[in-house]
C-alpha cells in the first residue's frame, strides 16, 4: 500500500482530490439510462438484461471516473463499494419480486370465503373453493409435531448442557448435527416405510411425526445455545442453598432462558410449517375438511399450494388459489417470526454477548 501512497500525484495538498458525494448517484443514473438505451437499441426485451448491462456499466464507470480523479487505491475502494451495492440490489430484486408477486396475485381471491371454505367438490381447474381444510390440516400437523418435537428437543438440550458428559453426550451432539442436515424428504420416506410395515392409511399425524423429526435438532441447537448463556453463578447459588439440581434447572435455569428457548421453538415451527416434501408423501391431501389428524387423509397448506400448481393445467383460477395460499402461509410464518423476535427482544438475557 505504501507504494500506492507514493505514486499518488496530488501530494501538494494535505487531502487528495476526491469526487463530490453525489458522484455515485450520477454514475448510477447515467449507467441505468445508458443500459436501457443500449438494450432498446439492441432490441433486448428482458428487464433482466437491462439491469445486468446497467450494473456492469455502473461498476466500470465508477472505476474509470475514480481512477482518473482519485488514483488507483481510491478507485479500487469505489469499485468495491459499487460492487457491494450492485450485489445488494441484484439480490433484492428477486426477493422483492417474490414478495410483491405473492401479495399482488395472492390478494385476488383471498377473502373470508376463501379462508372459511374447503375445496370440497370444486374441480382444480374451476374457480371457487378455499383453503380452510388446508389451514386446519397444517395447524393440527404442525401443532402435534411441536408437542412432540419441542419437549424432546428442550430436554435433550438440558441433558447436553446440564448433565451431559462422556461418550453418550458426544454421540448425541454429533447426531444432532447430522440430523440438522437430513433432507426433509428422507424424513418423510422413513415415516412412510413404518406406515407401510404396519399397513396404515395416510393420516395427518404421520406428517406430524416426520415434521417432529425435522424440528428436534433445530430446537436442540437453539435451546443449547440459550442454556449456555445462563451464567453459572445462578446455578451455583441455587445449588449452594441446597436446592436439588432438577429444581434448580426448572426454577432457575429454564426461567432465565425461557425467552430464547421460545424464540428457538417458534423459529423451528415456522420452518416446519412450510415443509412440503414429507407431507406430500404422508398425508395424501384431501379437498374436504378433516378435523381428525389421527384418521383419514388431511390436507396441508404447502401441499395444497403444490397440488394447485401441479393440477392446474394452466388454469388461472388454480394459480390464483396457489398464490393466495402462499400469501396465507407466508403471513403465518412471518407472524411467527415476528412474535419470536419480539419475545427474544423482550426477554433477552442481560448477560453474555
Amino acid at each position, binding site marked *: 500500500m505504501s507504494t500506492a*501512497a507514493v505514486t499518488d500525484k496530488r501530494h501538494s495538498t494535505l487531502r487528495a482530490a476526491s469526487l463530490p458525494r453525489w458522484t455515485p448517484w450520477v454514475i448510477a443514473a447515467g449507467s441505468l439510462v445508458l443500459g436501457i438505451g443500449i438494450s432498446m437499441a439492441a432490441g433486448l*426485451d*428482458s428487464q*433482466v438484461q437491462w439491469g445486468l448491462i446497467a450494473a456492469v456499466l455502473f461498476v466500470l464507470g465508477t472505476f474509470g471516473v475514480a481512477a482518473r480523479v482519485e488514483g488507483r*487505491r481510491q478507485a*479500487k*475502494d469505489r469499485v*468495491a*463499494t459499487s460492487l*457491494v451495492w450492485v*450485489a*445488494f440490489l441484484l*439480490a433484492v430484486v428477486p*426477493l422483492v419480486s*417474490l414478495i410483491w*408477486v*405473492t401479495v399482488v396475485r395472492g390478494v385476488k381471491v383471498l377473502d373470508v370465503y376463501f379462508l372459511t371454505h374447503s375445496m370440497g367438490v370444486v374441480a382444480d381447474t374451476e374457480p371457487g373453493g378455499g383453503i380452510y381444510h388446508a389451514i386446519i390440516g397444517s395447524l393440527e400437523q404442525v401443532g402435534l409435531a411441536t408437542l412432540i418435537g419441542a419437549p*424432546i428437543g428442550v*430436554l435433550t438440550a438440558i*441433558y*447436553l*448442557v446440564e*448433565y*451431559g458428559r462422556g461418550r*453418550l453426550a458426544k*454421540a*448425541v*451432539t454429533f447426531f*444432532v448435527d447430522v440430523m440438522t*442436515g*437430513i*433432507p426433509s*424428504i*428422507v424424513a418423510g*420416506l*422413513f415415516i*412412510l*416405510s413404518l406406515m407401510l410395515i404396519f399397513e396404515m392409511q395416510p393420516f395427518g399425524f404421520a406428517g406430524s411425526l416426520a415434521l417432529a423429526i425435522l424440528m*428436534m435438532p433445530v430446537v436442540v441447537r437453539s435451546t443449547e*445455545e440459550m*442454556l*449456555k448463556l445462563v451464567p*453459572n453463578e445462578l*446455578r451455583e447459588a441455587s445449588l449452594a442453598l441446597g436446592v*436439588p*439440581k*432438577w429444581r434448580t434447572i*426448572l426454577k432457575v435455569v429454564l426461567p432465565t432462558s425461557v425467552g430464547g428457548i421460545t424464540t*428457538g421453538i417458534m*423459529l423451528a415451527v415456522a420452518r416446519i410449517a*412450510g415443509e*412440503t*416434501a414429507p407431507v406430500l*408423501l404422508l398425508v395424501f391431501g384431501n379437498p374436504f375438511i378433516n378435523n381428525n389428524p389421527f384418521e383419514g387423509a388431511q390436507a396441508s397448506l*404447502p401441499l395444497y*399450494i*403444490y397440488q394447485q*400448481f401441479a393440477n392446474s393445467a394452466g388454469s388461472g383460477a388454480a*394459480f390464483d388459489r396457489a398464490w393466495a395460499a*402462499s400469501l396465507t402461509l407466508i403471513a403465518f410464518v412471518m407472524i411467527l417470526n415476528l412474535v419470536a423476535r419480539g419475545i427474544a427482544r423482550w426477554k433477552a438475557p442481560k448477560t453474555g454477548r
Partner: protein
Amino acid sequence: MDISTTTDVPPPASQPTIAERKRAARGATRPGDRIFLGLSRGSGILLLVIMAAIAVFLTYRAVLAISKDHANFLTTFEWNTNVLEPKFGIAVLVFGTIVSSVIAMVIAVPVAVAIALFITHYAPRRMSGPVAYVIDLLAAVPSIVYGLWGALVLVPHMNGLFGWLNDFFGWTGVFSWDEGAPRSMLTVGILLAIMILPIITNVSREVFRQVPQMHEEAALALGATRWEVVRMSVLPFGRSGVISASMLGLGRALGETMAVATVLSPSFDIQASLLNPGGGTFAQNIASKFSEANEFGRDALIASGLVLFVITLLVNGAARLIIARRAEYSGANA
C-alpha cells in the same frame, strides 16, 4: 438461527465440579433428580434411536433394491423400476445434484458475502437494520413458495438471459441453447442461489460483526481505505465463518425438493449445456417418481435417498470441522 455457528465446546461457565459430575453420573439420590435426569437422558437417547432407525432402515431397504438392480447402481443413466428386469442408477442424479448446487454456490456465496458486508460495513446506518431484518425474514419463506415463484415468474424471465448467454458464450458448449423452455439446471441453480442467499448472508453477517473493532480501527488509523480495511481485517477474520455458512447453504441446496421439482424439466440423461432442459436431482427425483412407484420402486428411491443422506452428512461434517477450528481461532482473539 443466526447463532448456530457458535461453538459446541461448552463454555467454562457450565463446567461442573468433580463432585457434582460424580453425583450426576451416579444418578442423583433424590427421586426428583433421578426422574429428571432419566427424562432428559431418555430424550437424548431417543434422538440417537431415531437416527439409528433412519440409517438402518434406509440401508436395509436400499440393499434390498440394489441387490435386484439389473444394472450398475452408480453408473446407469436410467430409472426404470416398474418392469420385470428393473434398471436404475444414480449417475444422472449425482451429476444434477452437484451441478445445480455448484451453480447455486457460485452465485450465492459472493453475493451473500457482499450483502453481509453491505449490512455491516457499507450501508447507511438507517438502512442496515431494516435490510438485515428483511433478509432474516426471507430465510423463513417456505421452499414451495420459492418453487411457485420460480415456475411462474422466474422461468419466463430467463428466456432473454438464456438467449444472451447463447449469443455470447454459446461456443463454449456449456451455454449453448436449443431454445427450449428455460426449465434447465441453470434456472434451478439460480433459484437455489436465491433460496440459500438469506441463510449464508445471516451467518456471514454475524461473523463480520464479531471482527474485533481494534483490527479495523488500526487499519483505518494507518490510512487504509474502506476496501482495504475489509480486505485486510474483515475477510481474513471471517473466512472460516463464511466457509461454514456456505456449507450450511450447500446442505440446503443439496436436499431441496419442491423448488427443483416445480422448475426443472426432468429427464434421465446428462445435458452438456446448462441451458438445455434435462437432468435431475436426488430429492426432485424422489418427489416426482414417488407417487408412481410400486413397492420395489420405492425401495429404489430410498436407495437414492440414502446416497443423498450420506452426501449431506459429509457436507455437514465438513462444516462442523471448520466451525470447530474457527472456535479455537476466535477464542484466541477474545
